[in-house]
């Protein structure tokens, strides 16, 4: 009997370990995610990989660290590479707490000039690109950016990005909340998944006092729409329960941030529209939230 129990335990452990390894091999260290020498022919590391955690991030992004803390930043590795002509290429691998955070940081940073070209590259879950300069993607709980300071052939940038993607765990899906925003009229590339106001404040200024009551159990999405020929922003925030959504609605209405046209709740979901549009059009957009 004892032998059978031991055998079952061995089988169970093997299955668990094997399953984990197949589904999402955890990197041994974040430094190891960056390509080494000759990983991409013609490029050599210009310096040792630098890593930063939440106590040292300011050394890398002094003045902008909050943008990353807003997505539950854990650590980042930065590698730089030179080619024979002295062109410098930089890779940043950002590790966040969850896949939602990685997606959110990706949406916040997406500003590429060629979304169609980026979409055609089969790397990561979503991509963003400036041809010849930059390719960014997210995968699992990682956000990755490959950027050249001077123009570089796209296939070189893609080769670096693919090396990193191959070293990352697979997986990650867009948060459900994102799909609740209506697609019709949404400005392509404008969607931002957020956890704190700071991530959307350059589009909609809410006063910097967290009137939406965002916390670890809530998250939001913002997208720009064209209503009546004018720009408008729709914000949707998912709360853990209806009471939290109602409380946030009350705070938002009391704060009267500039540009607020309509705000409503539907169970645990809050929707609000900002812009210079009619109240009727704004309310219709809020009610289109799925």
């Amino acid at each position, binding site marked *: 009997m004892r032998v059978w129990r031991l055998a079952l335990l061995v089988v169970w452990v093997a299955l668990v370990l094997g399953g984990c390894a197949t589904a999402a091999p955890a990197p041994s260290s974040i430094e190891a995610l960056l390509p080494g020498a000759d990983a991409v022919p013609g490029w050599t590391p210009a310096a040792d990989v630098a890593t930063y955690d939440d106590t040292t991030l300011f050394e890398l992004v*002094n003045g*902008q660290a909050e943008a990353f803390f807003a997505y539950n930043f854990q650590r980042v590795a930065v590698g730089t590479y030179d080619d024979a002509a002295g062109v410098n290429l930089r890779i940043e691998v950002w590790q966040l707490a969850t896949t939602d955070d990685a997606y959110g940081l990706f949406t916040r940073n997406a500003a590429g000039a060629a979304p169609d070209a980026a979409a055609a590259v089969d790397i990561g879950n979503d991509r963003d690109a400036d041809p010849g300069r930059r390719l960014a993607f997210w995968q699992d709980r990682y956000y990755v950016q490959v950027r050249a300071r001077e123009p570089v052939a796209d296939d070189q940038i893609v080769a670096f990005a693919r090396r990193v993607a191959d070293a990352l765990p697979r997986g990650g899906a867009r948060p459900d909340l994102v799909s609740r925003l209506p697609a019709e009229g949404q400005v392509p590339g404008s969607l931002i998944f957020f956890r704190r106001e700071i991530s959307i404040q350059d589009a909609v*200024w809410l006063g910097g006092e967290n009137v939406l009551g965002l916390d670890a159990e809530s998250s939001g999405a913002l997208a720009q729409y064209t209503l009546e020929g004018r720009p408008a922003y729709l914000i949707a925030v998912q709360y853990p329960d209806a009471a939290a959504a109602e409380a946030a609605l009350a705070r938002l209405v009391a704060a009267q941030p*500039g540009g607020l046209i309509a705000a409503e709740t539907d169970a645990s979901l809050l929707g609000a529209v900002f812009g210079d549009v009619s109240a009727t059009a704004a309310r219709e957009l809020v009610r289109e939230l799925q």
Partner: protein
Amino acid sequence: MPVNSSRDAIPPRRHDGRSRRRAQLSRRDFLALAAAGLVTGCSTGTPQIPSATATPVLTSGPTTAAPVEDATPTPRPTAVPTATFTPLPDIEVRRPDLIQRYPDGVSRVVHAHHDGAWRDGALAPEALGEMLASSITALTGMDDARAAWASLFSPDERVAIKVNAFRNSIIWTHVPLVTAVTGALQDAGVLPEHILIFDYYTSELVEAGFAVNRDGPGVRCFGTDADYSAGFEVADYPTKLSNCLLGCHALINMPVLKSHMIAGLTFALKNHYGTIPNPEAYHYGARMEAGMAQLNALPPIKDRTRLVIGDALTACLRYGNSWPYWESDYTGDAILMSFDPVAADAVALELLASLLEADGGNAAALRGMAEPWLASSRAIGLGTSHLDEIDLVELSL
């Protein structure tokens, strides 16, 4: 030269409508021009000699960043004057009577444009010289630019110039503008070896196109690196000050116009986040609101500050969310000059906001984020952020 004195907010100026990812100059071009501009101004073996006769304005000349030169030969010293820039514990910091600002006087801000600031993609030294000369006379009310500089800076004083060469950025205080300022100082009698261009790290200055010169002839240029003096407190939190600053009698604050995701604006007051080793301590909420004001109110900074010369020759209207966090997305033709750093920031904020709105952006966040620390600065008497208390002088050259 039309001169308008106005208390109104700055109207939007010419705007090229570019996206933030389209800088006018490539980094390589910029660095090449900048390096050329500093060859003699910052690190050559030929010190620039102050002149008793020259004006700070160049004759028409090359379009690259040449230093302000003097046409009148003057005897050159046989040895390089020593200037260690170590802290001066018993320094007597003077405040020239010429310096007037809120709350003791009216805070004036000069906003000078020059249609010829850029020529063939490079900053034109002669235009920069004209902007500085016109601004300093408008600011001081004196007729002669050289005399105005000389009334603010004595030949025996060491002058620190705090530029913005921040490493997470690729928009910096323009080297040719700094070179024009160092030229004007020398024309006023300040020895080049008594002028120090500094920022946080030496490597940042190199990246921004400045030529390092620690102890050779000519204008000195190096970063604080780890050379700080302790014993200061800002917003109930300890900090240190750069010995580059403490080793000088006078300070010229030369920021560049940028938006900021927490402060809204980064210009004169926030430029001193590069004068301390722990700026991260003052980037959050109440500590930023109080810290920005209190840092600039520390006597070694407040008492040494003789001028703010703000660079709006380019600007970053929209900060980025990935490296580089700041890059030029606007090409301008202006500088701001003031004795009052708070007033300079208030005017710069209106300028930045109007440019952003003209480009289709929403400036509400910039204003909302900046208002608390501007108000704090005014409340402690550092200067004024109220536009109706500022004498705004618009110059078009």
